[in-house]
């Protein structure tokens, strides 16, 4: 479903701030893989997702989505295959537009946008049903501006938008990190449900190692722009946080305690 072949990306090349963010990254995702991604700060987790999404061109390597080479495609073109939820709840939605309008934009992802009406009447009923499931009371204020919602609500709406038109690949970039623990849990549970119901191929970055173990069928650990640990299925479900810590220390010779990685 997704294939990254020897992807390199260096920021600020040739300056004192030079940062090799991706360093020969290779990854193949099977159809339906739900992969959790962990790694310290600067390991290249978000950079990998941004490379897939096409936020900027990569320096070297190839990116294939669903067998198609998208390496040269711009961000908005790749969006046809992708659903994305960002770390900052403000990023995924248009604050000055209604919940329904935001969802209508998401429904048309990958489609030609012409002079047809931007949101049809029957769509609204559909959105109402979907919002009802969030159990946040949003179904009664479907035309409210998204800017009026809380961070958790916005993130839940973004998640619905990302999966409204079933994406080939869902990219979740630490999408619960900015939420309070209770809301984070709710959004995460919802993500898991939606991914499993639709059998979505998913990359989910998290700083929480317990979550990384609990969710998904596969776990990858990144370090210095590469994947240093890749575990799936049975073996993954038996993992413990202490195993991950040991693995990380073995590879990096570093202490996780220095890092932002959460242990609980």
């Amino acid at each position, binding site marked *: 479903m997704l294939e990254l072949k020897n992807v390199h990306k260096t920021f600020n090349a040739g300056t004192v701030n030079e940062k090799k963010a991706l360093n020969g990254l290779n990854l193949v995702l099977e159809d339906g893989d739900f992969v959790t991604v962990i790694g310290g700060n600067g390991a290249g987790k978000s950079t990998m997702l941004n490379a897939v999404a096409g936020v900027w061109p990569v320096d070297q390597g190839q990116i294939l989505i669903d067998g198609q080479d998208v390496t040269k495609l711009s961000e908005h073109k790749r*969006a046809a295959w992708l659903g994305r939820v960002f770390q900052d709840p403000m990023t995924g939605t248009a604050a000055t537009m209604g919940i329904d309008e935001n969802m209508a*934009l998401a429904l048309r992802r990958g489609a030609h946008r012409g002079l047809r009406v931007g949101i049809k009447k029957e769509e609204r009923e559909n959105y109402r049903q979907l919002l009802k499931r969030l159990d946040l009371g949003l179904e009664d204020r479907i035309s409210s501006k998204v800017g009026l919602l809380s961070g958790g609500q916005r993130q839940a709406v973004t998640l619905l938008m990302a999966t409204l038109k079933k994406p080939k690949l869902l990219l979740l970039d630490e999408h619960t990190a900015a939420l309070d623990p209770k809301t984070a849990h709710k959004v995460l549970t919802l993500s898991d449900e939606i991914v499993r119901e639709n059998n979505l191929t998913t990359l989910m970055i998290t700083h929480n190692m317990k979550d990384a173990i609990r969710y998904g069928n596969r776990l990858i650990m990144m370090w210095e722009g590469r994947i240093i640990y890749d575990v799936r299925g049975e073996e993954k479900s038996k993992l413990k946080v202490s195993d991950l810590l040991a693995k990380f220390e073995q590879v990096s010779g570093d202490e996780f305690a220095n890092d932002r990685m959460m242990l609980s």
Partner: protein
Amino acid sequence: MPNIEHLIGALPSAAAQGLIWGIMAIGVYITYRVLDVADLTVDGTLCTGGATFIMMMLAGYNTWFCLLAAFIAGMLAGLATGLFHTFMGIPAILASILTQLGLYSVNLKIMGKANQAINVDRFPLLVSLRYIKDVPFYRNTILVVFLFIVAIIGILYWFFGTELGCSMRATGCNQQMARAQGINTKVCIVLGLMVSNGLVGLSGALLAQYQGFADVQMGRGAIVIGLAAVIIGEALLGKICQNFAYKLATVAAGSIIYYIVLQVVIWLKVDTDLLKLLTALLVAVFLAIPYWKQQYFNRVGGKKGGK
């Protein structure tokens, strides 16, 4: 105290001018509020529209065709700014300043000189300062321009409700989100600049008819007048007008109010040399109000910085 009748007598022409500039202000609203771009192209585009219109009228073309040409000329100016910005990566405000500067030459070349007059008696003009009083009501400039504004608001209301229009609004609000939803933000910005400047060109064509000439200086400070109209409209009527069509109407209303206030200032025998300074200060203060409000409320809330 000056004679109040003089003021009342001047009000209809102030209203007519306000309405004509209101079309330009609606164009400014599209870039400034919908696209979130400060587009200074308009200072040049206003004259481009007026000049194109006058020269084509003088060449004997149909009035409506000339208006269309002015609209298209404006769109081309917007296209230039849009390409400077998206294709060449120049910050929007600087891109628009470049176009504005370039348009000065373009406008001179269109007209062949700095000023071109047109005689309302010899050409079938739609509006004129002579058509304010003593004409059948359907020829009255105020009514004609009012109908223009109603039509423009109607079309824009429809347009910004379409898929394309919604993408443009999303682009103006959050480009990152727009791209993630598959919207080509560059195209949206260029299109928005074109629509906006097209309207400014149209406004310039009406203004040139109204005053009976096009002048290479006629657009100087237009952006500030446009911003003044947007801000006055929002400040006075923003609370009650949430619907997009009403918001556009408040912009036009803001423009009329601006011209009436201007008329009052003139009537009070304030030195007219100071008008631009007063306008600039007025706009500065209105622009500062939201900032001050935020500062003040943050302090009352006792919140510290945050991000």
